[in-house]
Every structure is written in C-alpha cells, then in structure tokens.
C-alpha cells in the first residue's frame, strides 16, 4: 500500500520540473499563437488600409515587410555624457525615414493620412517585435530544456499580452482617426486655444496666446487632427527664448495603478511627459536654466485606454481638468505674470 505514495514522490522528484515545463510551455504556446494572429491581422489591416485610402501604384507589401524588420541601435552608454542628444538624433533619423517611406507610397498622400499610416506602422512593428522576442525566449528554453529560463517569460506574459491587445485595438482607432486616451491633454489645451491665432512653434507643434484674469497664457500642443505628438521639447525651448513664462503647467495622460479608476485627475510637480525621455530631458533642462517651476496635471488611464478610442470617463474629465488648470494658474501666477500650458500626447482626432 505504501508504494502508492512512493511512486508519485519518486516521479515528481525526478520528472517534476519536466512536467511543470510542459504545462508552462503549453500556456506560453497559446499566448504565442495569439500574438502571431495579432501580428498577422494588424499587418493585413495596415496593407488593406494603404490600398483602400491612398491607392499606391505598386503593391506596398514588400516595402512594409521590409520596414517591419528594421531595428534601432541605441548609442553606447559606457560614457553617458551627451547620450540624450545621441538618442534624440537616432530617434529623429528613424522618424524622418519612416515619414519619407510612407510618403513614397503615393504622391497624393496628405499629411493626415501619412500620420495615421505612420502610427499604424509603429503599432504593427511593435507587435512584430513582441512576437519575435517571445518566440525566441520560448524556443530557447525548450531547446535547452531549461525550466528556470521559461519562468521569467511566464511571469511577463500577462503584461506582454495586455500590451499586445492594446496595440491591436489601437490600429482601429488610428484607421478611423478617432481620439485616443492619450489625446486628453491636447483636447483640453486645444479647447483653450479655440478662437486664438495659432502659430507654429516646432515641427507639427502649434502655440497661441490668450488672456486669463490678468495673466498671459501661452498654450501649446501638437498640431491636430493628425496623429502626432509634435516636438514639445523644441517648441518649449523656442517659446521660452522669446517669452519667458513664470510658470509651466503640463497636462498629460498617465498610467493608473491597479485599483484606480480611469479618468481620475491628479496634480503634481515635474515634467509630465512620456516617451523615450528626450523631450522630458529637454524640458527639464530649459526650465532649470530659467528657474521656471513645472506643475503637472495627469488624467489616469490604463495602457489599453491610452492607445485606443478615448473612453467616456476620460473625455468627461476634460471640464474638471480645465477648472484645475485655471485654479493652478491663479494660485501660482500673479496678475501680470505669464504661464505656459502644454497639452502633451497624441492629438489624433483633436483639432485646436
């Protein structure tokens, strides 16, 4: 009778890790299949969109497939001095090249369509990369029969899948030119900019002036309704060189913590801007040099909400945020002083 207990104990002692590897592998394999479907579906969506909207003379699939395999080599960080400028240069080169590649698809493409295609291309490329990375880690662990190697992948899979689902959802919003959750900052500042004279501050970035209870407001956002985040760092540098504001207020979307509601508004200090960090660095540098305090107002949302069609709760927070901006201006700038208000984020589907 005691043998009944001994057999499984011995079995698990020698083969426990292999059994666990099999179970974990099958779970990861399912997610990998899902990732593959996402990657292929979004690629097809992109190609169909290009064919139906800009009607290129030649089949764009070869060009698109080649683009999906492009990589970016980050600058060496053994000596980090000046690395931000190097990263900015590399990222700008990539952006410029992408823009150029999209424009070569058709001579009749307008800037709105081009920006939408650039954004969809970015989402498809990221999905392509995610699939390849997960597949690499999975196959390496299987090839080496190495259980500890598969554990970090198993832990990361839910987060990777969350991002992948968000990217897949983003393609639909980009295709239709609908505002995304990340566009809440530009939407709030865009409303404040209505009926003012808009001027170009930097590439794809506009600004205007307005009076508010004796204070001068400089309002800045990416130029909508194109799918762009503009160049807030360059624009801020230019505005500050011409008109030195006393306070900077930045409005942006921010990732919520689990358990927090979407659309809740928080205030804080420092430059509220995401991305790779080059714009934040530039804004912090200029503000520090001129000793200008930076205040931030953020609208909380999940990663999926940030890159897919704006949810009602997020859109409804606009009035609340506007009144908080006004309050912040009155609290931190005296009449006669000036405030720079920046709406940070992708301004797709949001004009000004």
């Amino acid at each position, binding site marked *: 009778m005691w043998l009944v207990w001994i057999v499984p104990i011995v079995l698990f002692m020698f083969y426990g890790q292999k059994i666990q590897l099999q179970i974990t592998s099958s779970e990861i394999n399912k997610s990998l299949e899902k990732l593959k479907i996402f990657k292929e579906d979004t690629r097809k969506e992109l190609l169909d969109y290009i064919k139906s909207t800009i009607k290129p003379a030649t089949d764009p699939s070869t060009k698109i497939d080649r683009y999906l395999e492009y990589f970016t080599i980050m600058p060496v960080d053994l000596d980090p001095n000046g690395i931000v400028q190097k990263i900015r240069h590399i990222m700008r080169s990539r952006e410029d090249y992408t823009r150029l590649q999209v424009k070569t698809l058709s001579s009749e493409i307008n800037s709105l369509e081009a920006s939408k295609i650039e954004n969809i291309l970015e989402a498809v490329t990221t999905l392509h990369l995610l699939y390849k990375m997960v597949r690499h880690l999975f196959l390496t662990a299987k090839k080496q029969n190495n259980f500890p190697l598969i554990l970090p992948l198993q832990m990361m899979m839910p987060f990777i899948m969350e991002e992948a689902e968000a990217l897949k959802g983003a393609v639909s919003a980009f295709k239709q*030119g*609908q505002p995304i959750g990340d566009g809440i900052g530009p939407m709030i500042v*865009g409303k404040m900019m209505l009926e003012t004279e808009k001027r170009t501050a930097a590439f794809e970035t506009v600004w205007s002036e307005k009076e508010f209870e004796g204070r001068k407001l400089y309002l800045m956002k990416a130029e909508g*309704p194109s799918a762009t985040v503009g160049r807030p760092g360059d624009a801020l540098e230019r505005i500050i060189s011409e008109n030195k504001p006393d306070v900077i207020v930045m409005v942006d979307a921010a990732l919520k913590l689990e358990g927090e509601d979407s659309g809740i508004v928080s205030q804080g200090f420092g430059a509220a801007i995401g991305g790779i960090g080059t714009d934040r660095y530039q804004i912090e540098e200029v503000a520090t040099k001129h000793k200008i305090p930076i205040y931030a107002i953020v609208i909380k949302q999940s990663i999926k909400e940030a890159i897919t*069609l*704006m949810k*009602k709760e997020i859109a409804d927070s606009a009035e609340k945020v506007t009144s908080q901006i006004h309050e912040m201006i009155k609290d931190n700038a005296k009449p006669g002083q000036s405030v720079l208000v920046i709406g940070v984020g992708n301004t797709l*589907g949001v004009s000004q």
Partner: protein
Amino acid sequence: MKFKRKKEEVIIPYTVEQCNSCNAISKRKFKEGDYVFKETDTCSSCKGRHVSITKIFGEVST
C-alpha cells in the same frame, strides 16, 4: 465547476456636438471624418450655424 468565459466588450464610438448659440447638445454615432472641435452642420434646435464637435468617445454597448 464551469468557469464563465469573459465576454468581449463591444465599444461603440460616439460624437457629441454642441451649438455655440443655444448650447443644445446632441449625441450621435461617430462618422468617419469627425474630429474634436470640427465645425459641423446647422443646429436642429435654433437653426444656428455654429455647431461644433466637443467630444468623441467610446461607450461599451449594453
């Protein structure tokens, strides 16, 4: 024990328009070409020509 599969949410995009003359607000389904702050048709309440899109958002269909 049976586990219920999570139902996939269907999100419908809506456009909210507001008349700048009479402040009448109307909500309709999103049409391609809509964008926030775009000047649209005449107001159905006051026939004014200052109607603009104030919001575009998605709501889960019930």
